[in-house]
């Protein structure tokens, strides 16, 4: 195993252990080791990428992790095209977020703890993408969940933060429930959990069926959908999306790194990694496409009305992740991973921009109290603008290339739901542009709506914050260059590079169709931006009048369709109530305990009445004896 590959995950691990144990003593210096180690990891990851690019692959076990009977799983690394891309995304964004956090987290209690957990997250995420088998993937999968839990709950004395961390963990567990059953089914089908033999023999399960409790399903469909359960949880798709908006309780750099750029894309990575299995099941692909489409629209409509800037970006993340799932669903895995790649940069930039604004506003996150920040925070302004243009799909920016590729692939795909996904995706492209620029105008233009005191303190964030913003802005603009489609003069490098792992898309659009689709989606985006400008710059009274005209729609969107309330009412409360009132009070105490304590009581009563027989009177004993003798004589007589 080459050393550089070992360094990539294990240096951050070392950094976590060291910083966690000794960081308290290092105090404000505790960020050095985490930053240095993740930067070194990035360099190694880049080297790994170059190695892969020159045709070098690794699939090697470190040691046997668990072996029992015929089951054996190793800890081992797989370095291929997909992994190398993920390594770049994870380490580059992690490094920038580490540096940014020096400014953002300055003076916070538990400064060292924050950096230790960032390192833990980086390690976990790298193990997730590097694993050469499903169990190691699952290890990373749960470990990133743990890091996320710890970082969401970083301000643990706040009930809402502690709640949000717990919620994230438990909701993810619900997805993992399906995931782990999927692993069992994979093991039952292939007798191994390692990628290579599974994907090499995947054709053999093509027409097999699996029966449980009398229900027979197609085996690839069963495996694919069970794995997809895990992806839904991790990537916050319907109906398990509820944890992600709440996760915004965590410090903003965490939202950027974990809840936008890297961890939440693990679900997409999972589907992409298992593409040979998913491609065997048209049913599964349709389900993914439909779930993706609905989530895409659902989250975007919520983002339209939110006023907490982080929540807007959070719902936009859910919506963008849904685009990636649409891509996977229509069989265009490399387009999905491409969007994962570009999204990582522009979304991290949006979040870190929000963080910079929150710093400037002294932890005010409500857009109602912002406005006109442009002149106070020029660097934040310009970088935020670039990110907004990128997410809105303005031609030339990174988001444009990846989103358009997804939409084109969806349109021509032979997956039944493809056209539907294209329609929703285009509609949402317009909405995305609208809510992004709504946010942009409300934050940076118009008059300042906060307090005078806030206004007096407004200033640009320190350089340690703005430099990462600038670097990410480069990514948000240029990341698309890797995959410029042929129709506008590119050579679609991205798809070719990932082809060995992700295969060909089902169908290619002709250049004419691609161009037409491009024009449609760009127009949708342009219309969205125009509408945002009209509503929030030109006619600031318009939003109010629209709200009044559609009060129900507005309330649904503003209250996130009441999904949280629904879950609380239909699941959480009933289960706890059932536990308290039925299981504990009725079954455990009233029934089981009563039987258990009742037995001695009965014995006590019986022996109590028996005791009366022994009253100490010889005459009574004599009578019993006579009775007994008579009984025995009669019994013997009858018996004979």
């Amino acid at each position, binding site marked *: 195993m080459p050393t550089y590959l070992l360094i990539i995950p294990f240096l951050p691990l070392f950094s976590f252990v060291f910083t966690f144990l000794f960081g308290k003593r290092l105090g404000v210096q505790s960020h050095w080791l985490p930053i240095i180690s993740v930067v070194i990891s990035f360099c190694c990851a880049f080297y790994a990428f170059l190695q892969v690019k020159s045709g070098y692959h690794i699939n090697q076990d470190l040691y046997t992790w668990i072996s029992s009977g015929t089951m054996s799983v190793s800890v081992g690394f797989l370095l291929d095209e997909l992994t190398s891309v993920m390594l770049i995304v994870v380490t580059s964004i992690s490094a920038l977020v580490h540096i940014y956090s020096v400014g953002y987290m300055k003076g916070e209690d538990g400064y060292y703890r924050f950096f230790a957990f960032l390192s833990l997250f980086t390690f976990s995420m790298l193990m997730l993408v590097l694993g050469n088998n499903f169990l190691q993937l699952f290890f990373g999968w749960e470990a990133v969940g743990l890091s996320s839990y710890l970082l969401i709950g970083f301000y643990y004395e706040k009930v809402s933060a502690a709640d949000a961390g717990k919620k994230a963990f438990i909701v993810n567990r619900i997805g993992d429930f399906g995931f782990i059953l999927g692993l*069992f089914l994979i093991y039952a089908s292939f007798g191994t959990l390692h990628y290579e033999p599974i994907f090499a023999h995947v054709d053999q399960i093509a027409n097999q069926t699996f029966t449980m409790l009398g229900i027979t399903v197609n085996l690839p469909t069963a495996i694919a959908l069970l794995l997809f359960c895990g992806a839904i949880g991790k990537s916050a798709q319907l109906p398990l999306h509820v944890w992600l908006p709440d996760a915004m309780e965590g410090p903003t750099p965490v939202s950027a790194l974990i809840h936008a750029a890297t961890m939440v894309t693990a679900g997409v990575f999972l589907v992409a990694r298992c593409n040979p299995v998913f491609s065997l099941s048209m049913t599964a692909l349709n389900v993914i496409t439909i779930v993706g489409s609905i989530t895409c629209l659902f989250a975007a409509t919520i983002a339209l009305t939110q006023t907490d800037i982080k929540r807007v970006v959070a719902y936009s993340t859910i919506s963008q992740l849904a685009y990636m799932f649409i891509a996977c669903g229509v069989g265009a895995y490399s387009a999905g991973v491409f969007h994962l790649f570009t999204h990582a940069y522009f979304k991290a930039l949006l979040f870190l921009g929000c963080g910079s604004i929150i710093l400037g506003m002294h932890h005010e996150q409500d857009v109602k109290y912002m406005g006109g920040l442009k002149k106070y925070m020029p660097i934040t302004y310009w970088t935020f603008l670039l990110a907004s243009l990128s997410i809105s799909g303005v031609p030339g920016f990174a988001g444009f290339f990846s989103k358009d590729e997804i939409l084109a692939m969806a349109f021509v795909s032979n997956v039944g739901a493809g056209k539907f996904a294209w329609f929703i995706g285009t509609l949402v492209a317009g909405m995305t542009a609208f809510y992004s620029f709504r946010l942009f105008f409300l934050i940076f233009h118009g008059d300042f709506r906060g307090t005078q005191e806030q206004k007096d303190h407004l200033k640009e964030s320190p350089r340690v914050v703005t430099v990462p913003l600038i670097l990410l802005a480069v990514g948000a603009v240029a990341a698309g260059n890797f995959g410029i489609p042929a129709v506008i003069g590119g050579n679609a490098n991205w798809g070719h590079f990932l082809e060995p792992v992700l295969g060909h898309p089902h169908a290619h659009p002709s250049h004419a169709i691609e161009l037409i689709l491009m024009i449609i989606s760009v127009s949708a985006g342009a219309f969205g931006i125009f509408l945002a400008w009209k509503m929030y710059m030109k006619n600031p009274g318009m939003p109010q009048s629209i709200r009044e005209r559609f009060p129900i729609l507005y309330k649904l969107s503003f209250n996130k369709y009441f999904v949280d309330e629904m879950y609380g009412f239909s699941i959480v409360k009933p289960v706890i109530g059932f*536990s308290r009132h039925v299981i504990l009070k009725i079954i455990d105490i009233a029934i089981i305990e009563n039987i258990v304590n009742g037995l001695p009581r009965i014995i006590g009563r019986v022996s109590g009445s028996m005791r009366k027989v022994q009253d100490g009177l010889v005459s009574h004993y004599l009578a019993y004896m006579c009775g007994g003798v008579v009984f025995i004589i009669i019994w013997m007589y009858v018996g004979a």
Partner: protein
Amino acid sequence: MSFPILSLLIFLPILGGIVLLGMSRENEKNVKVMALIISLLEFVFTLPLWFAFDKTTYHMQFVERHSWISLFNIEYYLGLDGISILFVMLSALVTILCVLVSWNSIQTKVKEFFVALLLLEGAMIGVFCALDFFLFYIFWEAMLIPMFLLIGVWGGPNRIYAATKFFLFTLVGSLLMLVGIITLYIKGGNTFDILALAEQDLPVRLQLILFWGFFAAFAVKVPMWPVHTWLPDAHTEAPAAGSVVLAAILIKMGAYGFLRFSMPILPDATTAMMMPMLVLSLIGIVYGGVICLAQTDLKRLIAYSSVSHMGFVTLGIFALNTQSVEGGILQMINHGVVTGALFLGIGMVYERTHTRKISDYGGLATNMPVFASFFLLFTLASVGLPGTNGFIGEFLILLGSFMTKPWIALVASSGLIIGAWYMLWLYQRIFFNPVNPKWNRIKELELREIVAFMPMVILIFWIGLFPNTMLDFMHVSVAHLLEQVTGNPEGVASGVQLAVTNSLDSAGHGVQHIQQISH
């Protein structure tokens, strides 16, 4: 005849206890130090077992065999195999931690407390070593007395009720087992030799009757649903050390009983009763988990979580295939380590706060960050996070039971969700949320307490990352056990088709990890 190491391990703590009894009551410090030395020595003496154990045979090792009561063929017969060896070591380790955690928390009758603890240790190790059913029964019952005293004398306010309940529950179960043992003796060729009994071919009807007789004893100990209600009471009232021993070792005896007696001696009954046992285990998993959500008492919650976790253990054991049984045995160790550690922690915090009510806590992470870190690790191990030992056991059990019957793993996996729910909720209510001003001056852990935690921390990661070092002990013994029960060293036939596996093997594919197994 080699060195009688097992006798040494059994009688060192017992003799130590007697020596302790003779020491002066005045100098408590000496008593404690002596108890610590004895428990440490005991652990050191278990180390040769680890190194000298031959992992390639299922035959009993370190055997000692002497005729004892020849009239009834009763023997003093000791030995270890891959199933029991780890429990002997765990018992010795846990006892040390119990001594440490009781250092300050036991204030009355200090000497007697440590005597009871050491006697308990001797009896526990005896149970795991005994190969003669009669001898086993003696150790089994002997455990009861010191444990009864630990709860009844040094327990909480409601200790008498709890101790009596504990005593009666186990005693009723044990008596039915005694009837079973005697029946076995009569019908099984006048012997108490467990290995010889396993060779007998008993009629199925008799096996079934005996199975339920043993079940009474073992299920109560595990405890399986619905005979679990003694456990929350016993745990709540027991002193910290009592809870730790109870959780870590005592309740393992039940599952061990199934493995050592019910399964090899009554194979036909075991396979016939597989389904009822699996269903009871599933009920235990879900029921024990859901009921945790209603708990307001710290110790009660962990006690009920034991019902759920031990449900996984019995599920694994009765799913009857290699992965599930090995997972079940490993999970016994894991549960001992993790729940033992949780009770250690609760004991430490109780010493400071004197309350077990969850709602009295809050924000403890601020003033006790070290403690919070330890407890978080134990919580995560308890919910089976990969990388910790809890994951390995649960994974193997679930995988194994999926292979036997997929729907069983489906139901059991729901325990993972519920487990995360109640454990993280508990953790939040104790360590997160606003700081309860009552605990503003609470003391952080002292060195003694950190030392007591360390072995558990090491074991959690050790087993979590290198489980093969433990599983290697079991492979041959478990294969032998499964062969005895099902006639196949891999256990019952899989309920799932293995379409590709066969072709994988025949094609010579499956790279290195498939080949490694054949060695």
